């Protein structure tokens, strides 16, 4: 234990553990980019007809930055009308956040109820088990037709996020340490107090796990749901399909994929940050 206190030892520790990790991390990214460059160059040089589908990193980077200036096909330079990546992000985020918000607001309380009340669980379980196995994407055509361009894809996001949150919260409620509840009861806590001050806080880590899983699923959902853009709105999924299938502007397709990765990382990261905050504040970790 004395090792950590000496600055030289600490540096040595950083060098042998963290530094190596950082180095390996960098190496892996460099190797990935190098492989990407080689693969796209190989396809191009060998005259493969698949070459257009794998543009090099440089081309993709150019398309990525160009996307924030103007998206070809959606913009009309002849009359100075511009559509950019920001428009796509706004479109997708609006649907994403709406769907996720509704899922959270319903799944969390419902999970608490189902976890703590046997009657509610007996009522809810069968319904949940009927609908949970249906992949959210299976609902895309119906949802888009019924709920339209905004709430259709948002509804798919809702389905994608709802079940992971619900299931995790139910599990969380059931995992609450019985001794904690007994202790609270011994100290004279009322049922409502036990629920609000013992059960609910103890469920939060499980809730956050559900939220993080739900966020990941929700991003998959929004992209696929926007593929079917029968009516209304753009969005990243719409552009993914349009730029590749219709226009053959593959660098822009990859640029949109990178943007989705960034947004997904941001939202999951934000959830992780909230979780850490909660742990720190509640003294769990």
């Amino acid at each position: 234990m004395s090792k950590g206190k000496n600055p030289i030892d600490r540096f040595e520790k950083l060098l042998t553990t963290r530094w190596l990790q950082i180095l390996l991390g960098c190496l892996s990214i460099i190797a990935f980019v190098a492989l990407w460059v080689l693969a796209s160059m190989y396809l191009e040089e060998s005259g493969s007809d698949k070459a257009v589908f794998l543009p090099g990193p440089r081309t993709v980077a150019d398309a990525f930055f160009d996307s924030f200036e103007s998206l070809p096909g959606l913009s009309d330079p002849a009359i100075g009308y511009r559509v950019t990546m920001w428009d796509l992000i706004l479109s997708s985020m609006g649907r994403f956040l709406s769907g996720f918000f509704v899922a959270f607001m319903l799944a969390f309380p419902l999970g608490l109820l189902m976890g703590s009340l046997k009657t509610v669980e007996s009522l809810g379980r069968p319904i949940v088990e009927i609908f949970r196995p249906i992949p959210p994407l299976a609902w895309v055509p119906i949802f888009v037709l019924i709920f339209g361009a905004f709430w259709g894809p948002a509804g798919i996001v809702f389905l994608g996020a709802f079940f992971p949150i619900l299931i995790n919260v139910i599990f969380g409620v059931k995992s609450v340490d019985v001794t904690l509840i007994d202790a609270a009861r011994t100290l004279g806590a009322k049922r409502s107090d036990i629920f609000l001050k013992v059960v609910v806080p103890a469920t939060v880590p499980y809730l956050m796990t559900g939220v993080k899983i739900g966020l990941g699923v929700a991003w998959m959902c929004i992209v696929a749901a926007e593929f079917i853009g029968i009516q209304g709105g753009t969005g990243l999924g719409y552009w993914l399909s349009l730029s590749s299938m219709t226009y053959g502007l593959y660098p822009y397709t990859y640029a949109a994929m990178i943007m989705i990765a960034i947004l997904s990382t941001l939202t999951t990261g934000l959830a992780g940050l909230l979780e850490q905050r909660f742990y720190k504040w509640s003294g769990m970790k």
Partner: protein
Amino acid sequence: MQKKLMILAVIVVAIVVIASVAAVFLMRDNGGDENVVYYTTMAPSLMDSWLAENQTSAYIAWEPYASSALVAGTGRALLWTNEIMPHHPCCVVLGWTPFIESDLGGNVTGVNMTLRFLKAHIEATEWVNDALADKHSVEYNQLVDMAVGFTLRNASVVEEAFNHVSYGYEMNASFESALTQFTEMYIASNIVTNATLNLLGYDNSTEFVGDYVNDSYLAATTGIVPSPTILNPDDPIRLGYLAGDLHQMAQVVAMNKTSFGGTSLFEKYGLNVAKLTAFASGPAEMLAFKAGSVDIGYLGAPPAIQKRLNDRTDTVILAQANSEGSALIVSKNSDVHELKDLVGKTVATPGEGSIQHLLLKIALSREGIAFIKG
């Protein structure tokens, strides 16, 4: 304390969500309806019913879907596409280069099969034009029957639609210059870049179109005579076409056996032709070409150009199938009487890559109106 924090967190999340959603809607509204016409894309067969239900204010489609609303009395034509660009090219016959260059031994070569295919295409096109010239002929009735079967619209719709399509196979200078104009438009809107042209070995769009349009096959069909045997019994030509597109009647006629004494025109010239499942759009058919699952296909010239360049789909334009024959349809009682009246409204198109979409975009652009996804 914990409860308060939870509530606070929920409120913060709620505000963020509501603000973002509001922002999205506000931004859309502020986008200004002043100089914008919105579009949505769908299969042409759905368009007349969407218009009848007022879910869209107009649609632009190939025949017979343009005429179906006219005959039903629910719509009227605001604009025919030949008013946007007279004699504009439309559908073409496209060959997959690896197919044309293929050699199955003997005289079963891709070139021989292509020439025979084109011969049947020419004969079918001439047959269509002859049938249309005399509306009391047996052939005319046969043509209408075939069209009804292919498009799933009734005879009166099909007959009206035939009035608006001109069929022809020859590729003249104005055909090439129109394709050059399309290519230039794609370059101007950054859908295609000059770098792509250069990469494929062309200095400019004229040079590209000159190479892409290859009329030497059409010229070489004069030597083709009917064949008593089928050249390719085990390797049918895989034929691509668009769903219910009346512009592509030549392939419907050439496939038909009953009207030609039990032998189709393709068979007359010794060809075994297998129709693929209909494609929903030109870009979709071009993807199938790219994947190597179509040998010869009928589709609009614009997606063929765009995908030849951006996807480098190895194809060549062999013949024309038709020109003109699409229209912008609005509700009969609609207050839309000119293009400008469409501002702020939604038009259905067959897809961003289609010629109908492109021509409408040209027409709106001339009025200074943007055509954007609604």
